[in-house]
């Protein structure tokens, strides 16, 4: 982990401290938890959607090339 300084308003600091106290946690842990949740940073297992995307990736990539063939901005030149 890296140390990071951020500016918070008095209200934000008070709200963070209240959450930390309620959870028996620290201000840093609460901030990390909020960041993880907001940015969807928690690794998970491959879902059914993931497995389907992995299986169809080659076909989708080929379709992407076909669709972009007549698009001067997006085709591979």
């Amino acid at each position, binding site marked *: 982990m890296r140390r990071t300084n951020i500016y918070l308003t008095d209200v934000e600091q008070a709200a963070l401290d209240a959450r930390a106290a309620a959870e028996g946690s620290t201000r840093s842990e609460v901030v990390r938890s909020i960041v993880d949740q907001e940015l969807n*940073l928690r690794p998970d297992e491959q879902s059914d959607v993931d497995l*389907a995307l*992995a299986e169809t990736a080659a076909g989708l990539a080929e*379709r*992407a090339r076909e669709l972009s063939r007549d698009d001067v*901005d997006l085709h*591979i030149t």
Partner: protein
Amino acid sequence: MVIVDDHLALISIAGALPDLGASSPVVTTYSFQYRMARAVSDSAQTGSLSSRLPDPAAALGRVTHPPAYRLVVLDPRSSIDEAIHVATSYRANLLLAELVGAALHHRAAIRVTPGNVGRTWARLMEAEGVDFATVEP
């Protein structure tokens, strides 16, 4: 940072990316995200991959809002100066200008699948000093 094409981006979203020989995070450009989202949406409409893509709406959501721990989509505005340089110097289209512009701006490597390499790409990457290679999916 390593920038990948739409094919590798799909595999990355699915959590099945092979070794890219470059440091993470794995990112892609808006143009490549647009291409893959359009392909997923088209496949849902035509039903061309319906047997293997049973929930196309969920798949499209995964592509348009990928989890950041698997794939980040770069904001094209941050590298517009470099993209314009590439476009004017090499007559590159939007896809290529955005790709190389992002690599220059973020000092990132580029990894693409063999089917997505244009005739002039290797020479352009070498001229701009970009770490560029193809990866078999």
